């Protein structure tokens, strides 16, 4: 294995950690806003580290640019989606708010 493979492995493992932590947070956190936080954290950092790790495996600048674009669009879409969900929740009535609260004794 060359040095770049080792960097990729390290970055991928870090990315995997963030995805795992984000998923656990999404399932276990008590309310919608903290869950959104967990989810977008996984998207931003997890995907970012994944893309960074893959950049050490490519040959051309164009491929790196494409990978970077993927991350940038995921960031944009992720944050906007997070904002839209949060806004809907803030403007929603009591019934909707009750429905996203987890059952007693933790999440599903």
């Amino acid at each position, binding site marked *: 294995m060359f040095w770049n493979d080792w960097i990729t492995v390290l970055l991928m493992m870090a990315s995997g950690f963030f995805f795992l932590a984000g998923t656990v947070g999404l399932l276990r956190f008590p309310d919608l806003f903290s869950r959104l936080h967990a989810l977008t954290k996984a998207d931003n950092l997890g995907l970012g580290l994944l893309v960074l790790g893959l950049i050490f495996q490519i040959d051309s600048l164009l491929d790196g640019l494409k990978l970077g674009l993927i991350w940038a*669009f995921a960031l*944009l*879409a992720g944050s*906007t989606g997070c*904002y*839209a969900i949060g*806004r809907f929740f803030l403007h929603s009535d009591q019934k909707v708010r009750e429905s996203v609260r987890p059952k007693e004794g933790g999440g599903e």
Partner: protein
Amino acid sequence: MSLPAGLLDGLLALLLVILAVRALIAPTLYQCAVAFISFGLTLSLAWARLAAPDVALAEAAIGAGLLGVLLINSLRDFSRGGDDASAIFGKDLPTALFSRTVISCGTLAFAAVLGMAMFHMPEGGGLTALTEASLPHSGVEHPVTAVLLNYRSYDTWLEIGVLVVAMLAIFCAGGFEGFRRPEQGPDSDPVIESLARLLAPLMVMVAGYLLWLGKAYPGGAFQAGVVLAAAGIILQLAGWQIIENLSTWAWKWGLGIGFFFFLALAVSFMPLGLGFFEYPEAWAGPLILVVEVLATLSIGLTLTCFFVYFNGMGASESRRRTR
């Protein structure tokens, strides 16, 4: 196949089955829809693993993206009676039992046919050799595009026709009045609107790129059309109302042009002695490009119309309720 790759494929296959079952038997319709969207995404990954990027692209765009939007949208508008998934089988016990039996038998029969097909795989790679051999005469360089728009263009024409028929069915169900309502739309939001302003032009560019790419690489009219529709839907969500502001003339022609141009092309060379859907070899490339451009426009417009129409119908429904 190496062990990690085999492990990945095994996990994918397992996940597909779990998600498929989940999409059928989840307790609420919303969960069914979410499982179905995840199923579409996983399926597109599976197609990519099977080295079928054309199908993977189409599945990701249509199966996971557009169908998901339509499903969630319809759910919000039409599940007024509650979100209980078992309610769709019928209200009283005999009806529910009957519909469950019919659906189970149908599914079993379908699975049996699929299983039989698996045990009788065509030998010698089917028509691959023939497809490759005729590629220089097809006018394009990508075998999938050659099959879709030259060898079997009849099938593709009918697929575009299905969309036109679906649109007509929607009009029949609700009438034109429910569709043309420019004064109301989703309330616009600065954040979503700025995202739409940024993404929509890029998506139109990507659609054009996919269309052009179809000549030699995976891509083509359906994928490009769906990306175009996604741009339309995002603009619609941002409150732009592009469809409602099109002139009647423009969207009627827009919906039909792909289908009717393809048909006109199919018959226009018959007086010269060529068959139905047969093009002169020298013109095949440019003609296919024109068909694809028009089909992309029609597909994009039709799919955006589906979304807009469901949205409009939901809005008028809720207005009626609040009165």
